[in-house]
């Protein structure tokens, strides 16, 4: 469903979108069971494959904040920022884009806890962001600006159409402040996108990311146990219990 939408929107190149879809899916192999069709197995693949029979709660997440083109960017960027590898789960199978989509709709992302009155004066970086944009505007305007940059620099291609290497280069340039974007500082956008990606990767599954507490298992975090009096004196063994989340689910 999603891949089709992306395919339709990047009108002239359905095959590229399809190839990206496969690449992204295939990069997830270590996390899923390799039986039968690769694309029909596992929770994450089910998200991308509307034809597979999936239980209701495993249906693909439908973004309600991001528009399809933004969503395609987000999936590609999150996959670069936290790729799936032998160390631990990637951002996509962890549900990080879902987290971000949901998080953009909180008062936090609309800037409720930030002082947002003008005048907005350029100042030293030591005083922090002094612009008028709230987090969700930074993210949306930043995505649009990068897409615009890609269209111009890569003969009409979108970010999600580029190779992983090209995407990585763009993100690195944004991180280092070397990417000139219209409307927004690439560095500001990148720092917020990375922070949101990490938040989604590591925060409680309640918020939509960190599916199956995979990120916690990767680092050995016991999650919300919040009770270690009996372990504080132990020196010779690693803490033995797997994580538990806010809903009481054990990892």
């Amino acid at each position, binding site marked *: 469903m999603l891949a089709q939408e992306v395919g339709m929107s990047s009108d002239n190149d359905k095959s590229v979108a399809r190839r990206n879809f496969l690449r992204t899916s295939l990069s997830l192999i270590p996390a899923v069971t390799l039986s039968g069709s690769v694309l029909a197995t596992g929770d994450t693949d089910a998200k991308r494959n509307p034809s597979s029979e999936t239980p209701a709660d495993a249906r693909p997440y439908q973004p309600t904040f991001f528009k399809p083109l933004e969503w395609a960017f987000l999936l590609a960027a999150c996959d670069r920022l936290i790729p799936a590898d032998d160390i631990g789960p990637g951002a996509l199978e962890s549900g990080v884009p879902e987290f971000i989509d949901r998080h953009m709709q909180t008062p936090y992302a609309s800037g*409720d806890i930030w002082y947002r009155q003008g005048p907005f004066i350029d100042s030293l970086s030591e005083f922090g962001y002094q612009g008028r944009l709230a987090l969700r505007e930074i993210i949306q305007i930043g995505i649009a600006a990068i897409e615009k940059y890609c269209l111009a620099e890569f003969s009409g291609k979108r970010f999600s159409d580029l190779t992983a290497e090209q995407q990585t280069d763009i993100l690195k340039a944004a991180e280092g402040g070397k990417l000139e974007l219209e409307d927004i500082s690439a560095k500001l956008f990148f720092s917020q996108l990375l922070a949101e990606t990490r*938040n989604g990767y590591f925060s409680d599954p309640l918020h939509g990311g960190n599916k199956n507490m995979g990120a916690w298992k990767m680092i050995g975090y016991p999650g*919300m146990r919040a*009770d270690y009096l009996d372990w504080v004196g132990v020196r010779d063994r690693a803490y033995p219990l797997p994580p538990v989340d806010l809903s009481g689910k054990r990892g």
Partner: protein
Amino acid sequence: MATIKKKVDAVIVGMGWTGAIMAKRLTDEGLHVVALERGPDRDTQPDFAYPRVVDELEGSVHRRFLQSLGQETFTIRHGINDTAVPFRQMGSFKPGTGVGGAGAHWSGCHFRPLPEDMNFRSSMAERYGSKFIPDDMTIQDFPVSYKELEPYLDHYEYVCGTSGKAGVINGVVQQGGNPFEGSRSREYPLGANADYLGAEMFHKAAREMGYHSYPIPASNASGPYVNPYGCQLGPCNFCGFCSDYGCLNYSKASPNACILPVLRQRKNFELRTHAHVLKVNLDDEGKQATGVTYLDAEGREVEQPADIVLLCAFSLFNVQLMLLSGIGKPYNPETGEGTVGKNYSYQNLNRVVLFFNKDVQANGFMGIGGGGATFDDLNGKQLDNAAAGFVGGGIIWARQPGAGPVRGIPVPSGTPAWGSDWKRAVADSFRHTFYFEVQGACMSYRQHYLDLDPQYRDAFGRPLLRMTFDWHNNEIKASQFLVDKALQMSRVLNPRAMTGESKKEGARYNATQYQSTHTCGGAIMGDSPSNSALNRYLQSWDVANVFAIGANAFPQNNGYNPTGLVGGLAYWAADAICKQYLKNPGPLVQA
């Protein structure tokens, strides 16, 4: 047209530590007290209840227990000729709001000052001559001695169930405590908390360096405890959610757990939440406060007349309220005249992170806010300031208030911030990392002060408080000296990697990175109306029925966390009000 409430004996602005302390003592005396808190009511149940309280996204990203900056904040600039800009997002310090204030989301480090911290300027001048103190360094003595404060510092520790090991009791040095501390009248109410591995390692490194390490005094209960008010605390379980969080466990001392259970039952105490105080009202001559004006939850203006007005908001807001209300003369950094806003200071904090191999079970997710280990060999008069080349000392400590991945996972320098290399580094580091911190004193300077911003306003139309602050060479040198010692200590432990930097020459104050909520000064106590806004009882020199209780009273900040001294000063002031002021309302010190 404001609604006018019935007059009360005392109105308290803010229900954090100092507000709760003042309310307790004044209601003990039978006074009718109204407390106005701008935020919501909060209590262990339901606000800090497990498991929802330990949601890191809500606690450390949404900052649900901290002040929202949406309605009011500060502006900041480095120098008196710069244009200040707003502190738009929470960064270097974290004021609280709601019942409990910052006393609900603090960590629990509960130090007393050293005796020489209280007569700081004289002590420096005696040891090195007054020329050792730079001309623009406006440090002063506190107008009250450690000895005078001792009973109040002691009482506050017993209210909090502070866990620690005394170093000197009635002049006799005790094994295992801080041999350099001021003499105390008795042991801590509870013994020190158990050491986690990083604290053990700190003690080991300190011993090898010849330092006298001791357990950080922690208001995180090490065992079951009933305080003098009958409030109960249970043993801390190292949950790892102190700083930024309310305590789920009735273990971390807070106004909510240690004082409010008593206040809430009192008929002569009334707590009004969502009551945002706009200003203190003065009589026509400006010599007497008549009460305060606040906005209620619906934004209606209400006037609360009172005989005594106690400013017990976060230190910065106490100063702002004084400036907004015309209490005392605003400080002018050009002429040195005026006292309100004078001597703003902060804290000089730097961190060293030690990374170990996977066989070292650091378990940073286990945490106890105030627990850990420290020493005073480089603080107070133990430090040879002439040799070190700066004024003021500091402490080095190992502390582990609890690490969760949303709060950030330190990785060795050179690690990329994302991608597979970053993943490998966070997976390798998370359970095998400690940090040591250097917490240094921060001096006050002629050009560091607080006033009202000429440009920015809060949601109620009032000028924001403007902070003019930057690092001085003295603090940069102190940071370099102390961080160097911390690095030497760390090398003793032979970690696989270390990160940690002192402030470089020319370092500017960075308001975006959390350093410490220990903002001090601005309405300081002193021995004369010419050098201070408050007298030794924290009473305004200018408006005798206004008291401003908090770290705003510090003429400079010492090497410790301020809360222990803030609580001690609150009890000291409360005692003066009850024993002296009520009998004879008026100035407690003749100018």
